[in-house]
């Protein structure tokens, strides 16, 4: 109520001054940036208006702007209508306010679901080092299971042996693939006497 009175007031001032006040034509945009969007499904709205479908990017981040331009002094309230299929949530930040200039500060932060990457070990008598890219896990002698750091849904994985245990050779089965919507638990490491 109050804001519409204000608006009317400023519109009147514009009319009286016969000068370009910009606001009334609606020439300002509302937008911002997003992170964590690697799959389709993120839909945003401003003030409950038309859907803005956000296209995913390779690294998950990018920028957006609502095509509907708005007037100076109008309020904006960007909300998340739906989230990407691999995200657990998408939170908006700096998403409400009044438009005084082009808004580029709305942030949408999507959190991609993560899943466990683990498996079993047989015959290990020494210390083994497993790696998945930059993630290194040291496995103690006698261990019968291991777990790497959790990874994002849809991310590739490549579990390999960085350091063989003393006097043993281990091999990895089912070590590579792409993380689906469930934990990966079928990686097997089999160790025996060194073969060389």
């Amino acid at each position: 109520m109050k804001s519409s009175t204000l608006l009317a007031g400023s519109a009147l001032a514009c009319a009286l001054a016969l000068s370009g006040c910009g606001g009334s034509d609606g020439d300002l945009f509302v937008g911002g940036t997003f992170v964590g969007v690697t799959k389709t499904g993120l839909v945003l709205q401003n003030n409950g208006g038309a859907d803005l479908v956000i296209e995913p990017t390779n690294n998950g981040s990018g920028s957006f702007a609502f095509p509907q331009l708005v007037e100076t002094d109008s309020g904006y309230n960007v909300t998340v209508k739906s989230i990407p299929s691999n995200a657990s949530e998408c939170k908006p930040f700096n998403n409400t306010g009044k438009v005084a200039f082009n808004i580029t500060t709305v942030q949408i932060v999507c959190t991609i679901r993560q899943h466990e990457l683990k498996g079993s070990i047989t015959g290990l008598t020494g210390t083994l080092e497993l790696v998945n890219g930059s993630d290194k896990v040291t496995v103690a002698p006698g261990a019968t299971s291991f777990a790497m750091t959790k990874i994002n849904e849809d991310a590739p994985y490549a579990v390999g042996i960085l350091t063989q245990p003393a006097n043993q050779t281990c091999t990895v089965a089912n070590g590579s693939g792409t993380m689906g919507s469930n934990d990966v638990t079928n990686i097997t490491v089999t160790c025996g006497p060194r073969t060389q």
Partner: protein
Amino acid sequence: MKLSLIRSAGMMAMALSLASCGGGGDDTYTVAGTVEGLVYPNLVLTTNGVDITVAPPAKAGDPVTFTSPKKLEYGDTYNVTVKTPPPHQSCGVDPRFQLSAADTAGRLAAINARFVCVVNSYTLGGKVTGLTKDNTGLVLANGSNTGTTVIIPSTTDTTGAAFDYQMAGSVQYNQTYSVAVITQPTGRFCTVENPTGTMGDANVTNININCVPR
């Protein structure tokens, strides 16, 4: 505040007396600065003919400060440069403060030359053998770090001749890597030679991919 007032008063005094103030003696300035991102020891900076060795911070990630032992007089110029980077890192003037490392002593209340260091990164790659133009669809990955790399054979090759490939993204010094086949190509089964390791100070070029008919 107080300092700069004194300094301008000093300048005024010089101007009024019209005397050569060259000596000064007590009007000294210290070239100091900050280095961010330093991880390894033995960074050597140099300015005004004096070397300054900067050690990494006690707590990883903290910025470190340095101070040149040589005092400058009002009007002396300084230009702090990297004489020797630390091992495994590259250092330079912080691009956000490009003008901070060179100026004239006395123009600023305090000199703070801003430097930043990053750990060097190198690529992963090798040779692919056994893929003809029909064996498309090979996808590799280095763990879950840098997404996937699609290997596209020559569109004219019919013999499976070896060609070089490079993984997408790069790996920092001392980080581990593990390359594996995520998707096998049409009609071939590929294995990875030297799939794991710890990044050194050069590109890795021995991760060869050998593909044979299924």
